[in-house]
């Protein structure tokens, strides 16, 4: 309940609701608070604020993730150029072994990932529309044309799984060609870079699965929208990271 005390008289006549610092896993529907105001207040602007805040959190989090990939990149580049002491001759030699990448397989995986980026974007827009229309749907007498309910989210999950399977197949192929984790610094870094990316993507997959599950449990669409929206942006970012890693491994041999 929002009241304002006499010592906090301000020239601004609008009553402010307390900020609702909702977590990204909020379980309650937005509460229509007392009065308007530019922060808090009625449901949709509160929801918009939560979305914005969660997106901001994602951006901040992606900075940290970027630093991990920056570190691995600098290890890659530095190690590639590093001469090492050859104990037999006593001199310095370059021992960076060029790895033969299963490029075709990786290209297929790239295509699958980019496709999944498209589908996750479609899922994001789909649920945005659903969230926008949700208040209106409940008005009796209003009928909105049912749009074809293509399960973009499910398709994305399937494509993501396909990508991860493809990556695993690529590692197997690398093994067949004699390049294991500990074979050489170059092969080690390939596994580390692609492995770190795969872990990130798997995490995103789990969240998408969670978003799908909450739909089945009939959680409010606004909350689900925030989850799908933020995960979709995360997904796009991970697609970009993949393109970067692929390019690095292909062109900086």
């Amino acid at each position, binding site marked *: 309940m929002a009241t304002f005390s006499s010592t906090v008289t301000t020239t601004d006549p609008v009553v402010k609701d307390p900020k609702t610092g909702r977590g990204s896993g909020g379980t309650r529907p937005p509460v229509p608070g007392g009065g308007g105001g530019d922060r808090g207040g009625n449901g949709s602007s509160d929801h918009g604020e939560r979305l914005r805040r969660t997106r901001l959190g994602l951006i901040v989090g992606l900075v940290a993730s970027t630093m991990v990939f920056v570190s691995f990149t600098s290890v890659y580049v530095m190690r590639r150029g590093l001469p*090492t*002491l050859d*104990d*037999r001759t*006593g001199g310095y030699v370059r021992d960076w072994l060029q790895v033969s990448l299963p490029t075709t397989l990786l290209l297929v995986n790239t295509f699958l990932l980019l496709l999944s980026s498209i589908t996750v974007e479609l899922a994001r827009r789909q649920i945005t529309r659903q969230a926008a229309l949700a208040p209106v749907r409940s008005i009796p007498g209003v009928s909105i044309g049912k749009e074809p309910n293509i399960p973009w989210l499910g398709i994305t999950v399937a494509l993501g799984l396909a990508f991860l399977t493809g990556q695993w197949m690529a590692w197997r192929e690398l093994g067949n060609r004699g390049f294991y984790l500990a074979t050489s610094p170059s092969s080690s870094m390939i596994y580390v870079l692609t492995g770190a990316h795969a872990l990130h993507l798997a995490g995103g997959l789990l969240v998408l699965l969670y978003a799908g599950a909450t739909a089945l449990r009939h959680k409010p669409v606004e909350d689900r929208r925030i989850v799908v929206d933020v995960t979709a942006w995360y997904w796009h970012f991970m697609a970009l990271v993949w393109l970067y890693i692929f390019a690095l491994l292909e062109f900086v041999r």
Partner: protein
Amino acid sequence: MGLALLAIIWLITFFSTYFFVAKTWWLPHGASTAAAFIDNQFALTYVLMGIVFVAAQGALGLFVWQYRDRKDAKKVEYSHGNTRLEVVWTVLTAVLFVGLNLMGSNVWARERFAPADPGSIPVEVTGMQFAWYFRYPGADGKFGATSPKLMDPSAGNEAAVGLDTSDPAAKDDVVAGTMYLPVNRQVDLRLRAVDVIHSFFVPNMRFKQDAVPGLEIHMHFTPIETGDFEIACAELCGLGHYKMHGMLKVVSQEDFDKWLAAREAEKQ
């Protein structure tokens, strides 16, 4: 309370400074060409920092007493600062700090940028858990090959560094557990480490350099006094780090030649 604070801060400052000025515990005696320059730069730094130290702590102690709250205290000067003053002391600090650094930089350049002189005596220093070994290239002036496969620390000296006696250049290499150097002659050190990082530290020579596995690091210094000087390991290398020490014996050129010849003779 203000007075108590002033007293404790000033007393701490006094005692700290006293032991610096009295040099009760100080840098060990310097016996290399670099020592005079390093010690000069050290003195300059410690005088300047000492002045700042005394001034800052003195001001802190003074202000907390002078501006203590009491009935007859002056009204507080309501102010958010003084930009001009900020700029002045920022510039002064920058000049002091960066200037101090630049003054020491040519000593650093001399010690580290240039390679060893042509007439220097080459010595290979190998660090391992937990001993130092010193290898002299012998008459051919070349270090023979070593091999990790031949390393056996328990056998000491040649075996510890894995000397490959099948290499002709290795036949005249002398490996010792004590470092002998001729006075007034630059030594061209080749630093190696066999297992983990060690650090070759000779306090009297103002010399320190990490010995890193996988690297062969060249460094030099010039001893200018004869005597025995202890060598300590200055990078944590395992449970024997505290007792990984050696001895540097600086002798005249003739004594050095005699010692080396004796070591060569022993090998036959």
